[in-house]
């Protein structure tokens, strides 16, 4: 089979079968790319993963672009990114097209009244695990709280806060250490 077709079908499979965000996709990507297709070694995969996590961008697109690039250059990266995003693009487009027409349906409205608070809970849950793993000290522990206040009460764009966080991170060793 043509290599581009192989890349496309592998990544669209990954895109179509992972529900619940990027991290749920990892085991599937690893099995397809490392074990089945042998496009990358285990070590390469971990490098790709580390970089994709620490660079900005949609995590899954980062990974797809990176792996596609390693297999077949820029063309490979475009095909991989297309493959992993096309299934969700098509599904969401269909939902968006038809959701509005049955949104005002009484049954659908009731169902979504129940779903909305649960979504908020799903977002709140990872906070606990993440804050445990972050090793915040007495200076950095204030950052998440300041961020929340700036966004919720002052409607400051998260972009400025991220930039401020990066600058703080760079100067932090000079300010507080030793």
């Amino acid at each position, binding site marked *: 089979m043509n290599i581009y077709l192989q890349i496309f079908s592998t990544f669209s499979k990954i*895109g*179509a079968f992972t*529900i*619940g*965000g*990027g*991290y749920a996709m990892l085991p599937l990507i690893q099995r397809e790319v490392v074990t089945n297709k042998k496009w990358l070694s285990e070590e390469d995969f971990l*490098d790709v993963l*580390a*970089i*994709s*996590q*620490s*660079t*900005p*961008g*949609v995590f*899954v*697109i*980062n990974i797809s*672009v990176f792996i596609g690039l390693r297999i077949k250059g820029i063309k490979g990266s475009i095909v991989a990114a297309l493959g*992993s*995003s096309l*299934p*969700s*693009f098509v*599904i*969401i487009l269909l*939902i*968006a*097209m038809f*959701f509005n027409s049955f*949104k005002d349906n009484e*049954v659908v409205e*009731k169902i*979504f009244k*129940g779903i*909305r*608070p649960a*979504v*908020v809970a*799903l*977002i*709140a*849950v*990872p*906070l*606990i695990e*993440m*804050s445990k793993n972050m090793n915040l000290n007495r200076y950095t522990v204030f950052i*998440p709280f300041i*961020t*929340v206040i700036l*966004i919720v009460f002052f409607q400051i764009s*998260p972009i400025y806060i*991220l930039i401020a*966080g*990066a600058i703080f*991170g*760079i100067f932090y060793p000079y300010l507080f250490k030793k």
Partner: protein
Amino acid sequence: MIYLQLFITFFKIGLFTFGGGYAMISLIQNEVVVNHHWVDAASFTDMIAISQMTPGPIGINSATYVGYAVTGNAFGSAIATIAVSLPSFIIIITIAHFYVQFKKNVLFKSAMNGIKPVVLGLIGAAAILLVTKETFIDWKSWIIFGIAFALTQWGKFNPIYVIILAGLSGYLIY
């Protein structure tokens, strides 16, 4: 020009997304709900619920959904989805060539140390901002919230099942 606005907005969202889908939510919300008023808070929450139940990353899902909601056609979806993915191409292709040095770069590591706690705050803010009169309509909403939280945190339930159960209880109690 709505398509250009859509492109710029989602390019910005892609460029400033660190740390996965949940961290993206407050960024998308700030742009789409607060700045541009393209969708309201309740529709935004519905969109996240739909993202959770369907395959694919939240970033792509929300771009596709908002692109359609704003323009009413598939072309708008395509523009927003391409825009949110484009920063990945530029950044990954640029750093792929010298990625071993990049990983060890001290400046980059320090910047990331400052960004990580902000990401934690972004997720917290996303959760707080989604608590509105449209999403939490009465005390029953808070009970659903509490049960959903407990099932996911301590019961280790799959989020898809939590959403299905919440939808079912919504149907039964309202």
